[in-house]
């Protein structure tokens, strides 16, 4: 199963590199083709895979730490607070390369706020995290709406940025995101066993030697960082973080050691395939926003699983 998935992944990667609005002859590259392949397409394909992996991974962790099947980067306020910075940066005309930085900063700010709100007498519990996330999400979304309204000249830029996508990718961005993902993945994977225990009640987990509050805080902070980095580079790509972990739990079991891995892999696969479709499906070079394809591919598969193997999703 794992090998099959890797195979599919590799084939999708290859296909994504060769398909596109301009044809590429792999054995007979012209200079322009090489330019397009290595300068534009390959980084974009890899980037979409990394972002997909980031979103899948963060969703997997959020659902566990918040103990809620509806938890994702939206409900925790992480996506909106990062998006807020980007929107303001775009609206205020801050130079391009700084936009992800500003987004990251507001994302971190949001994280801090949610974290402070969720803590109660030093403890952090799922219900409080949810309530605090709601607050953050409300406030950030309100400010984003205001920016859309107030900076009307930037409205279309803002809306399309928010829609998310891999617009202009260079190796530099990839060099930022890949290490962030790799670091986060390693940090989580090293704690996969402990993370599993968060599915138990707090006392059981704690008496097994897991510092539940610290682990929850840690997982929350790292997942939010992932989301902030992803959102700051690509805008809001919804639902990947929500459905991919459910799909993986249903297919590969609840064990977080698998869920972390498969959520990343399936997230990468989904986003890579969706982006390839998004840029090739309409003849004439027009691109669909990737979120549309993601939703249709992912949503369709989720629907199929929901019809066929409902038990594996969530206890209840």
């Amino acid at each position, binding site marked *: 199963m794992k090998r099959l998935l890797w195979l599919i992944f590799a084939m999708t990667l290859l296909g994504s590199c060769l398909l596109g609005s301009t044809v590429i002859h792999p054995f007979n590259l012209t200079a322009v083709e090489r330019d397009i392949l290595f300068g534009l397409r390959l980084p974009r394909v890899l980037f979409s895979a990394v972002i997909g992996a980031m979103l899948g991974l963060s969703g997997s962790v959020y659902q*566990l730490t918040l*103990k809620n099947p509806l938890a994702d980067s939206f409900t925790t306020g992480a996506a909106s607070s990062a998006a807020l910075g980007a929107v303001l940066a775009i609206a205020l005309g801050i130079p391009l390369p700084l936009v992800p930085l500003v987004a990251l900063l507001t994302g971190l700010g949001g994280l801090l706020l949610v974290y402070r709100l969720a803590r109660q007498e030093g403890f952090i519990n799922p219900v409080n995290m949810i309530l605090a996330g709601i607050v953050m999400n409300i406030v950030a979304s309100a400010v984003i709406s205001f920016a859309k309204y107030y900076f009307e000249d930037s409205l279309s830029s803002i809306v399309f940025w928010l829609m998310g996508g891999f617009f202009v990718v260079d190796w530099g961005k990839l060099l930022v995101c890949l290490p962030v993902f790799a670091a986060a993945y390693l940090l989580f*994977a*090293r*704690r*996969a*066993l*402990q993370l*599993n*225990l968060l*599915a*138990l*009640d707090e*006392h*059981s987990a*704690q*008496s*097994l*030697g*897991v*510092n539940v509050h610290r682990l929850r805080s840690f997982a929350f902070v790292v997942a939010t960082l992932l989301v902030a980095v992803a959102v700051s580079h690509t805008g809001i790509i919804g639902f990947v973080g929500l459905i991919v972990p459910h799909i993986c*739990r249903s297919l590969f*079991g*609840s*064990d977080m*050691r698998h869920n972390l891995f498969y959520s990343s892999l399936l997230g990468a696969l989904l986003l890579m395939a969706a982006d390839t479709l998004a840029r090739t499906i309409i003849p004439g070079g027009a691109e669909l926003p990737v979120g549309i394809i993601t939703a249709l591919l992912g949503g369709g598969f989720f629907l199929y699983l929901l019809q066929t193997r409902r*038990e*594996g*999703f*969530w*206890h*209840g």
Partner: protein
Amino acid sequence: MAELRVDKLRFRRGGFSLELDGLRIAPGEKVAILGENGCGKSTLLQLLAGLLPPDGGTLSYAGKPLKKIPMARRAQLFALLPQFSEVIFPFSVFEVVLFGRFPHRQGNAFTAADRQLSKEMLALLDLSDLAERPFSQLSGGEKRRVMLARVLNQQAPLLYLDEPNAGLDIRHALEIFSLLRERTETIVAPVHDINLAHRFFERFLLLKNGRLLADVPRDELTPELLAETYDVQVATGTAAFLFQH
């Protein structure tokens, strides 16, 4: 010596307060906590296990203050069976029991030895047939036994078991109690079935309204003491079924 010491423990929550002036539990002792509902048995257990921060007093294990023992280390010293437990993901019985090996993990995976031990633990608690069943599809008593298996799998020298026989049928209760009696672990367990406790435990803490009423060995557990603890009339020696494992 791996003794558990409690001094001047104070804890309050809402209108409830717990006070325990001094308590020593020696290694290998089997201690039952008796007392009526709401007298603070579970609270005391959580305090002893370091899950609740006390408002005052000190707790120490093997001469070391509990606060100074890092959480990961504690899990190798104490295991806790909470009164209620939950599992939100559809984990299998085997996976849940395997979790018990967490404090002894090497690196980031369970070893073959861990799996082997878990299988043995399942067999010990008569759960082998259920190993692959999702935890959520068990009967109440089966769930409870799975959690017990998880706790025993932790192989800690000190076990806090909150009502270990709750929801268990008599055979399993007996099996488990005699199993526990024969093991070397220290056991501290609130129990409601006094006759069962009397048979298998050797020391009794009688709790009432958050205060320690008495701390007696088995032969001093008199009907009078029990009557005072529970406000009931107690007699001995009357006809009843006796179950033997």
